[in-house]
């Protein structure tokens, strides 16, 4: 049989039909409006940029980028996430704006995935970045916003897992191992490969406190347990102060009445080299991957020549829609019909002005207009 490439689309991308597009835009608008109400201003950046720009951020992994070459031989890439382009934008065009800067976005992003993985290669990310404030209040604001956005969207059963990569960094730095060993242990922690971690602990002969601390990093979770571990003492200095910060952030969230949505898990590391402080992921019942994620990345803007602390998060709109299982609400409005086109067109304008959709009927047969209105769920407005 003839292979009809012209009728199909590549794996990992998709069309949204009218109902789906309606649901998509509706939730997108609600969330973006909410960000704006919190004082976050929307920015729009190019869909593709130079590869070098993206290589400064998370997802430096070349394999996950869609790359192509322009006519001058420069390597371009489709954006795989929005934080790095925003960092570039802030470091170049928004340098003179008062700090802190609050920016938000809603954008298609692109990641190369093996087709058999069953993942989207193009999807919508909505997110915020709070730049120029390195304090704990900024951490709390972004976490609170993440929780409130999920509540606003109507996700019923969700939790934010809260980690702190500086704890792990502190413990790793105090291991006194060759770089190669640190990298291997980091890899095992990142992929949560506890089997490999154990064999590396054996291999490098780590004992006593070092061993206990590594094991704790991989498995410790729950507020009480993590805080008790912090008080036990013996942690390297960087790790101890990072944990203290985590506790402060959590206390603030509790004071804001948001404590129930958060749990501690030091195993959450996300993109480890890129984040510098708190990190978090949002999980929803029945979804096999995180719904949202973010954290503090104080080192990124420096790479663009404008050292600035920053924290933010992004949310996957397709995943959110999957959790909500939502279809667009029923279409409402009028089918405006009648023998005179100028008349119906004038009437339709009035209807639209009142905020209700008005669809023009292209014909003069009333019976046909009635039938069409019924089929499309519209009310017929017959103008004599």
């Amino acid at each position: 049989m003839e292979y009809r490439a012209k009728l199909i689309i590549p794996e990992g991308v998709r069309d949204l039909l009218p109902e789906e597009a309606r649901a998509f835009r509706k939730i997108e608008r609600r969330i973006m409006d909410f960000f704006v109400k919190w004082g976050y201003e929307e920015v729009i950046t190019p869909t593709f940029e130079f590869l070098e720009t993206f290589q400064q951020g998370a997802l430096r992994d070349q394999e996950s980028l869609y790359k192509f070459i322009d006519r001058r031989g420069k390597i371009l890439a489709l954006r795989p996430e929005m934080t790095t382009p925003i960092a570039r934008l802030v470091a170049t065009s928004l340098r003179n704006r008062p700090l802190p800067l609050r920016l938000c976005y809603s954008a298609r992003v692109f990641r190369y995935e093996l087709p058999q993985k069953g993942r989207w290669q193009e999807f919508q990310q909505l997110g915020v970045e709070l730049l120029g404030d390195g304090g704990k209040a900024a951490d709390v604001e972004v976490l609170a916003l993440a929780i409130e956005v999920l509540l606003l969207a109507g996700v019923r059963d969700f939790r934010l897992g809260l980690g702190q990569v500086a704890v792990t960094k502190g413990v790793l730095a105090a291991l006194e191992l060759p770089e190669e060993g640190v990298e291997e242990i980091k890899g095992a922690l990142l992929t949560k490969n506890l089997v490999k971690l154990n064999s590396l602990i054996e291999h490098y002969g780590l004992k006593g406190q070092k061993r206990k601390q590594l094991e704790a990093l991989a498995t410790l979770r729950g507020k009480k347990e993590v805080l008790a571990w912090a008080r036990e003492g013996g942690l390297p200095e960087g790790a101890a102060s990072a944990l203290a910060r985590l506790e402060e952030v959590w206390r603030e969230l509790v004071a804001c009445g948001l404590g129930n949505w958060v749990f501690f898990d030091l195993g959450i590391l996300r993109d480890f080299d890129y984040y510098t402080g708190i990190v978090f992921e949002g999980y929803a019942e029945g979804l096999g991957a995180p719904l949202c994620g973010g954290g503090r990345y104080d080192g990124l803007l420096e790479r663009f020549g404008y050292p600035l602390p920053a924290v933010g998060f992004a949310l996957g709109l397709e995943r959110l829609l999957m959790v909500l299982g939502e279809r667009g609400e029923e279409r409402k409005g009028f089918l405006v019909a009648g023998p005179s086109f100028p008349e119906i067109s004038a009437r339709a304008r009035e209807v639209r002005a009142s905020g209700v959709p008005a669809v023009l009927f292209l014909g003069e047969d009333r019976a046909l207009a009635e039938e069409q209105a019924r089929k499309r769920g519209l009310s017929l407005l017959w103008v004599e």
Partner: protein
Amino acid sequence: MKKMLTLAIPKGKLGEEALSLLKRAGLPWEGVATEDRQLIFTFPREGFTYLICRPVDVPTYVEHGAADLGIAGKDVLAEARADVFELLDLGFGFCRMVVAVPRQRWEEARGKVENLLVAGLRVATKYPRVAAEFFHRQGKPVEIIKLYGNIELAPQAGLADVIVDIVSTGRTLKENNLVEVVSIFSSTARLIANRVSYRMAYNLLEPVIEALKKAAEERRDDLVARS
């Protein structure tokens, strides 16, 4: 209703050993068979569902969250590179991932790996990513030929120069006049978890992980005591 915990179990021999470990760990097992037409077994009272999957599919079920936990061989995990958490070495299903060659070729290479592993080799395997990564690390560009079974046939039929495959006793290799020349890694069954389930349903998962851990240790001790 009690929240159900879903565990993906591989069909076949690995699945049989997995079942005996479940039994040892005090998890429900009665009536579960890994070679049956029935593929889903539920224990509503205990809150368990078992999915019987093809071994290579276990990481996929777990990665996508169709199962919270799964039991899969390290060989399969290394090939799948699924985004799952690897929690426990369960200690059974031991095998090795090896490079093997026809005896004659090994003799021509005068028993030296560096003479044998040259650029341009044709490599037959069920594990194309594992094989590609191994030869990549050696800096040898090779041609990988993906097969679905009876890999040992490929060199005899002239389809490939060497194979990358798992061996447990080495008998199959011997019977087909093949020699193991490199052991890439050794493999056992692992307990894996979906990364969201591990965090969202931790309270549910934790006792199961602990029970399996204990059972795997007991099993190991029993084997040591017997030998």
